[in-house]
């Protein structure tokens, strides 16, 4: 059986950054990245830009195939890990090969949730996670297309912006009574809906899809939404099955240093459910580019022997809908026992919503208030 110094499961920004940080810091051992995608690292953040035709599709790539051997990083593309024996330190791959490791980094990210309404299997729907997904969306959405978007999260907003950019007619189907009930106060939700409507997107709240048919979708209240295309953005889940007893509530369990409970194992990126030392030890999973990159970097240093808590305030931003520039700092979700402290700075436009847990600020949403980023970050860290 082959044995390597560092085995990295996942070829996204977390896994790739871990490998490069290890190498850049003088790590000399053999490094192997296993990735279920068939491509070198690309930016998922750039996929909507490519779909809209703002950049050519090949511009989404951040690495070339030859970037890896230049840094003595081996890649096994198109393969995944199906089981890990932590005692023997052996990972089993989808093609049956077993690889023994001294150190293991799990950075598998998260996968889009299955859409399992009746009829979904019979009719193709658009997704937006992979390079192939983006190519399919670019080809399918044309001027005049009628697009039903299922889900109002980050991907739903991206689909809405794509429809607007391409001259398609979009109907956004939001399950809740208003936008993002798990995160937004009513004031921010109202601005988001109004920004979408101003951009030309039809928004339907309380819209649960009961059935998919050739002519469109049927909602649970019997309403038929006629459309040519259905786009799905209903969230992601971490593939936990291969990783046995590391399964947590929202991801694979890691401590404040991103170490798993088994020796020589670290977890980084969207798949990590970690103890966030920056937020008073709150356990959560975070899915965004900057967090994945920063955690990959942290684990890369851990592979070199550094042992320190991960101390980066998670932050993300979206501004694809005109009039709705959103910055998210820390944990913004309406988690158990937390409360919201919303401050309207400018009616219907500029709002800051703090998330508070046990008297401590753990998150902030800034709507059209980027100038308050430093102040809000300091409140969370302080």
């Amino acid at each position, binding site marked *: 059986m082959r044995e390597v110094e560092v085995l990295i499961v996942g070829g996204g920004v977390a896994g790739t*950054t871990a490998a490069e940080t290890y190498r850049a810091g003088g790590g000399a051992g053999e490094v192997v990245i296993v990735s279920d995608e068939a491509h070198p690292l690309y930016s998922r953040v750039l996929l909507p830009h490519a779909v809209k035709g703002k950049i050519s599709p090949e511009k989404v790539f951040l690495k070339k195939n030859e970037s890896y051997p230049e840094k003595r990083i081996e890649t096994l593309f198109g393969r995944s890990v199906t089981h890990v024996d932590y005692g023997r330190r052996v990972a089993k791959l989808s093609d049956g090969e077993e690889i023994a490791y001294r150190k293991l980094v799990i950075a598998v990210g998260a996968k889009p949730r299955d859409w399992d309404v009746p009829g979904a299997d019979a009719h193709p729907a658009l997704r937006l996670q992979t390079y192939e997904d983006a190519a399919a969306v670019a080809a399918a959405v044309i001027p005049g297309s009628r697009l039903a978007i299922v889900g109002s999260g980050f991907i739903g907003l991206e689909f809405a912006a794509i429809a607007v950019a391409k001259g398609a007619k979009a109907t956004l189907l939001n399950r809740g009574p208003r936008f993002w009930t798990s995160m937004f106060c009513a004031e921010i939700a109202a601005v988001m809906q109004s920004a979408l409507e101003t951009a030309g997107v039809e928004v339907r709240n309380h819209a649960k899809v009961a059935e998919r048919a050739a002519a469109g979708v049927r909602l649970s209240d019997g309403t038929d939404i006629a459309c040519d295309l259905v786009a799905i953005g209903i969230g992601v889940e971490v593939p936990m099955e291969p990783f046995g007893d590391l399964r947590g509530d929202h991801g694979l369990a890691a401590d404040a240093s991103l170490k798993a409970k088994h020796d020589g194992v670290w977890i980084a990126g969207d798949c990590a459910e970690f103890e966030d030392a920056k937020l008073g030890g709150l356990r959560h999973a975070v899915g965004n580019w900057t967090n994945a990159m920063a955690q990959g970097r942290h684990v890369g240093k851990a592979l070199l022997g550094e042992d320190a808590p991960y101390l980066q305030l998670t932050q993300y931003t979206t501004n694809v809908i005109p009039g709705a520039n959103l910055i998210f700092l820390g944990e913004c979700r309406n988690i158990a026992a937390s409360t919201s402290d919303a401050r309207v700075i400018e009616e219907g436009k500029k709002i800051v919503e703090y998330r508070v847990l046990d008297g401590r600020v753990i998150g902030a949403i800034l709507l059209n208030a980027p100038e308050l980023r430093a102040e809000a970050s300091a409140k969370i860290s302080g």
Partner: protein
Amino acid sequence: MSDEKPVPTEASGKPLKIAKIVIDRDLCIGAASCVVIAPETFQMDDENKAYLVALEGNDAETIKMAAESCPTKAIFLYDEEGNQVYP
């Protein structure tokens, strides 16, 4: 720039020196990954766009790593001859 220590790049073995950094504000989405890696070089401004604090804020390899971490490839690096080093 005279006291900046040149760092060899892995690919070429030649020392990397960055003489110019350009941030494309249209491409920048404010993800702030550059600030995470090279905070002495990049910070976010009041419009949630990255700006250049100081050219010599971090060493060349760190600046290159920061540019490479940008999810929209909004950071352009040039060497002393004016050649684009990244992207």
